[in-house]
């Protein structure tokens, strides 16, 4: 389904920009991952029971399956077009594409059990996998190791066939091999050679083998014994990919307070590499000093999938693929692309230009990132922000020495807290923007894993046209005593480790959306509301800062009354008309919770409104006052006065 969408899109592009050389059009930029999980008796062995709550209870195979299960759910959200498959190896049972366990095809790849064929995951795949990891009986039925060892050559050829048939033209194809056996076929040279040959096939096919080794207590994992003949250096076959971190995945094991599952997940995440550059451009640091860089998107708001139309009248629910035809408004006849002209609406008519004219109007030079000069970071106010930034990293493809020049610039900007200001045209015909190039240092976790890569961030700056005027306000500056109290409040409530770490805050709306969708897809009960990590920890706030907030509230009330008093005196002194006396003036209310709420100079507070309501005098208030009050309660403010009054009264009646 996704493919046919894609096709339509490409067809449109094709007709539109036949002239253009599209670098990325060469191959579909999608990722296909096939998990090959070893099911041997040692992989199925459970860790010894422990009282530690955090201790592992899962066998290595189960941990790997759980890992695949999590990854599958994640990828449905983040990469809905990517494929995934799961192959169990060394099982007693055998099963290949389109077969059940008993058909003869099993003979082709004995002891290879294709649990989920390589494809965009379906709800059934998710359910199957979940049943396996959550239902022990189910697992015991399937996860039975074979009596004879599985041939690795066979496993690799099986993977070869899966990739060749299901994802023939994916630019990124990866085989994730999870095993604890560092020396299969220890005594059989022929089988070892056969495996090496089959591994070479995969390499020539463009499939990358990622090994996720698992060490057992008392038995490390030695790659040199077998796998160094199987795994190739992942030189970037795709020129868009950055030079890879040559580091091999760490050997996973449980212990040190982390489970095998966590350790596997982090190993897999460390293999994430951008599959496609956003742009590839000359970076002009000065006239005559050009290097080559590529841009990537590292920060992007993840949105839920767009809704679509589903056809339910068939045997299975099917997504209806929409296609649009363009028709003329006057006669509703279908219009050919070549007939269409572009014109701007102006003065009740249209102003049109030829295609060449439009191209020349929009043309401000070739795509480039050109440095205009440098400024200290302090000249970049926090509000000078228009959209999420892009990330830029050097490449040697067009200019040799790009990396070292970039590194020198990066180091200098980082050391001096400077930024570059640049003229930036991302693609042909893209609108030029001015951007701040801000250095970002490499950040490592405690265990040395990279959290944030080093590079320059491209922050598009607002033009004068994009800067809005600030709204007018009446400023009442807080006295120092009040500020001091607020400062104490803030000091109690620093975020953990004094940083904002996005990893701690999953998007609650997105997570909820997919939870519901998953439940609907699997025809299950709708889940309970999960914990929303973005909701502040109220209890902690009350415990740590509550007392100080109350103090601040009391002081605010005092200072405010003093302020009102002094203003009244000033106004009377100046002979102004008597201002309306604040009906709430007097002793500060005990409760601080409503400080500074719903009580504009001309507005009324809840108490006064209640008095009016009890006297049946709500109707005597003016429309602005009613609207103001309703607005404060987030109630609609539309309609005639009678409606407003009714709404106010309704509010009190329902209390």
């Amino acid at each position, binding site marked *: 389904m996704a493919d046919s969408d894609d096709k339509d899109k490409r067809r449109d592009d094709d007709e539109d920009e036949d002239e253009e050389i599209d670098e990325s059009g060469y191959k579909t930029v999608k990722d296909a991952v096939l998990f090959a999980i070893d099911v041997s008796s040692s992989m199925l062995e459970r860790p010894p029971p422990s009282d530690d709550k955090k201790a592992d209870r899962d066998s290595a195979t189960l941990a790997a399956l759980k890992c695949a299960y999590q990854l599958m759910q994640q990828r449905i959200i983040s990469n809905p077009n990517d494929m995934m498959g799961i192959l169990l190896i060394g099982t007693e049972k055998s099963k290949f594409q389109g077969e059940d366990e008993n058909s003869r095809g099993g003979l082709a790849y004995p002891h290879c059990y294709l649990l989920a064929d390589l494809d965009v995951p379906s709800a059934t795949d998710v359910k199957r996998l979940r049943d396996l990891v959550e239902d022990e009986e189910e697992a015991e039925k399937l996860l039975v190791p074979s009596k004879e060892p599985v041939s690795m050559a066979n496993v690799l050829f099986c993977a070869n066939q899966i990739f060749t048939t299901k994802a023939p033209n994916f630019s990124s194809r990866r085989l994730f091999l999870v095993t604890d056996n560092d020396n299969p076929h220890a005594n059989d040279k022929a089988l070892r050679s056969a495996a090496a040959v089959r591994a070479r096939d995969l*390499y020539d096919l463009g499939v990358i083998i990622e090994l996720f080794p698992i060490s057992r207590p008392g038995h490390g994992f030695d790659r040199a014994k077998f796998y160094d003949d199987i795994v190739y250096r992942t030189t970037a076959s795709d020129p868009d990919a950055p030079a890879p971190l040559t580091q091999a995945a760490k050997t996973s094991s449980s212990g040190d307070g982390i489970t095998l599952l966590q350790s596997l997940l982090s190993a897999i995440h460390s293999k994430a590499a951008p599959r496609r550059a956003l742009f590839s451009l000359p970076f002009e640091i000065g006239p005559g000093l050009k290097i080559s860089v590529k841009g990537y998107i590292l920060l992007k708001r993840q949105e839920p999938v767009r809704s679509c139309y*589903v056809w339910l009248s068939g045997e299975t629910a099917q997504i209806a693929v929409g296609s649009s035809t363009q028709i003329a408004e006057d006669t509703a006849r279908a219009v050919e692309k070549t007939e269409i*002209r572009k014109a701007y609406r102006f003065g009740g008519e249209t102003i049109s230009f030829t295609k060449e004219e439009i191209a020349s109007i929009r043309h401000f030079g070739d795509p480039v990132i050109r*440095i205009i000069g440098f400024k200290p970071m302090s000249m970049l106010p926090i509000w000078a922000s228009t959209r999420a930034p892009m990330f830029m990293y050097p490449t040697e493809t067009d200019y040799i020495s790009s990396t070292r020049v970039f*590194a020198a610039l990066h180091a200098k900007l980082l050391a001096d807290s400077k930024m570059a200001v640049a003229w930036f045209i991302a693609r042909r015909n893209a609108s030029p923007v001015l951007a701040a190039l801000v250095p970002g240092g490499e950040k490592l976790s405690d265990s040395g894993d990279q959290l944030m890569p080093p590079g320059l961030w491209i922050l598009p700056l607002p033009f004068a046209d994009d800067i*809005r005027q600030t709204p007018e306000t009446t400023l009442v500056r*807080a006295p120092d005593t009040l500020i001091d109290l607020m400062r104490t409040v803030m000091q109690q409530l620093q975020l953990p480790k004094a940083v904002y770490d996005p990893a701690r805050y999953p998007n609650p709306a997105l997570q909820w959306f997919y939870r519901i969708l998953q439940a609907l897809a699997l025809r299950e009960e709708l889940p309970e509301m999960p914990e929303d990590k973005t*909701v502040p920890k109220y209890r902690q706030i009350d415990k740590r800062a509550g007392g100080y907030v109350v103090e*601040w509230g009391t002081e605010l009330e005092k200072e405010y009354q003093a302020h009102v008093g002094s203003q009244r005196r000033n106004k009377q002194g100046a002979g102004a008309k008597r201002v309306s006396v604040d009906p709430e003036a007097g002793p500060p209310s005990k409760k601080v*919770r409503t400080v500074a709420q719903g009580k504009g100079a001309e507005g009324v507070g809840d108490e006064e409104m209640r008095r009016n309501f009890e006297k049946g005098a709500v109707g005597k208030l003016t429309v602005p006052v009613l609207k103001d009050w309703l607005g404060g309660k987030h109630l609609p403010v539309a309609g005639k006065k009678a409606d407003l009054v009714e709404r106010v009264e309704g509010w009190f009646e329902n209390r």
Partner: protein
Amino acid sequence: MADKEATVYIVDVGASMSEKNHGREETDLAWAMNYVWDKITTTVATGRKTTYVGVLGLRTDETNNELQEDENYQHISVIQPLSQILMPDLRKLRDEIRPSSTDEGDAVSALIVAIQMIATHCRKLKYKRKVILVTNGRGHMDFEDISGIISKIKEDDIELVVLGVDFDDAEYGFKEEGKDPVKAENEVALQSLVEECGGAYGTMEQAINELGIPRIKNTRPVPSFRGALTLGDPENYDSAMSIDVERYPRTMVAKAPTASSFVVRTDLAPQESSTQSSHTLPNGDVEMADNQDGLAAVKNARTYQVVDEEAPGGKRDVELEDLAKGYEYGRTAVAISESEHNVTKLETHSGLDIVGFVPRDKYDRYMNMSRSNVVVAQRTNEKASMALSSFIHALYELDSYAVARLVAKDGKDPTLLLLAPSIEPDYECLLDVELPFAEDVRQYRFPPLDRVITVSGKKLIEHRNLPTDDLMKAMSDYVDHMDLSTFGKDDEGNPTEYMPMEDTFSPVLHRINQAIRWRAVHPTEPIPPPYEILTRYSNPPEELLQQAQPYLNAVLKAADVKKVPPKQKGRKRHREAEKPLSGLNVEELLGREKRQKISAENAIPEFKQMLATTEDIGTIKDAAKQMGSIIQSYIRHSVGDSGYKRAVEAIRVVREEMTELEEPGVFNELIRDLKTKILGEELGGDRKEMWWLVRANRLGLIDKRISPLSEVEEDEAKAFLTAKLSG
């Protein structure tokens, strides 16, 4: 709503305006009209119905105005009564504003007519009233009884602008030599008139130069959130803070106007049938050239299809009514009934809720995910203002930012915001930007820039990818000498920031607007170049560059950057044998059973391996030939399009290998043969879709541009991709 506006332009079209002065190539009238057209078309572009424009001709041949009975009001004509200006009016103005053959007509009288026009139109309603007089000041002007006019202008609150062609202006620094004495006298009188009315007086040259500085559209602030800034939970805890606030946009990218799609109308001649009228299309072009609107908008009509193997073509149309709304979960379609419509929405309540605080220096500026907003206290709520002020100052004193959860309206998705304090002498607010969630961060790894780690895990600090000390020093000097923070000059000539954001203008936005406005009044003339300011910041300032040149030279020397010759990109005729990490010689293992026959199941690896072990052209040709038959068999045995992707991949690999081995002819033969067979329906029926995939993936002939050894010209390769056999 913006205020209503009424503006009358008095344009002097006297005979003397047709002269060309001071070496200008345009007549004075044409030159002055640059200003008037720009102003009028800017008004038209707003599309506002409540912005009225009138045009009054001064020193016209004819007379046509409300007061024409009086002989003092001769040679003054209303060309355009006060109204919203649309394209037909613009065309009419373009035709009617021409130099006259008379110099009779009094500018002061014209002023009175203009005031009268406004008074009649606006009555006592709320309007922004404006009169703009454009003249060369060389006609007779009667300044008697001027005090009456002044008091009337003041009384009606009319803004008076006088712009003179070659008027002296000491402030701007223009003085006309050998000035006509009448003109000199008029200039003095007009200037004092304007001063008394509190209007604006200037010379035309300045006005025209200033057209090059884009005007910025002011937008009335509309709050994106109104509610409480809370710390803690006011519903359940007595210790919670709650301040009523409002949130407004601080930045918002101004979008350039977008062109809409049109086709030439075909319903203009209703007696013709639709087929006939489409034949008359070429005539439409004539109409277009005349810039008459003859266009019909293009709309999109959507149809929906589902897979149905029994239907012809495997797909059939379905009606929108028969479809339910839903989503894709992986490859599973999930329908959601009308009643469950909101089931995927998270239930939320509006509010701005503090999550915690972070020190400023621990925040990475690149985490800003969005445009920015300001948060201010609820207007007219002084207590909230005081409360928020304490929050802002405390945040500022702690050099910290706050992180808060925003739900702009009940039911909207929550976002996390960074709140930063901003304190100016008479303005305090919080500034906010959106922060990323866990799912928004893509954890891609890139190698470090300050060290190189080898496969064996060794850490290097000297490597060709790492800068030398010389390069570091040179770069540091260059950066320091290209500093913009004090390169600019303020009004007093003191050093200040160069190119602050307030001085930069969106190039595409203003360029398109400029072109539209120009084309509206000059339908046949080429579009003038963009305003200088739009490209001013596309290159480093020359003066600064000169200072920094020696340092740049040092960087160039230390860096030794070389362009990669285009031919070398990705070439590998004598490539080194790829080896696994162990360095095991797999070739040797393969060599034992030298490949002769390529199997369809494992075609790509076997093809590559066959090529890798030979230098012999015969073997290469044989390998390609085998691939050719395999590709054809993939297509022949494909059920629907099931085998197409595999075929495409195989074609791609052969094409790539043959390009690298510099044997383009071998591939070209293969693809030609394939095309003939596909289009001849020799591969199991209609396989056009397959050819279309070849085309979409650009897997046609290898032409001279790709491989110099090819005998195929670029054009031929392009034509080949079409679905015609002759190509």
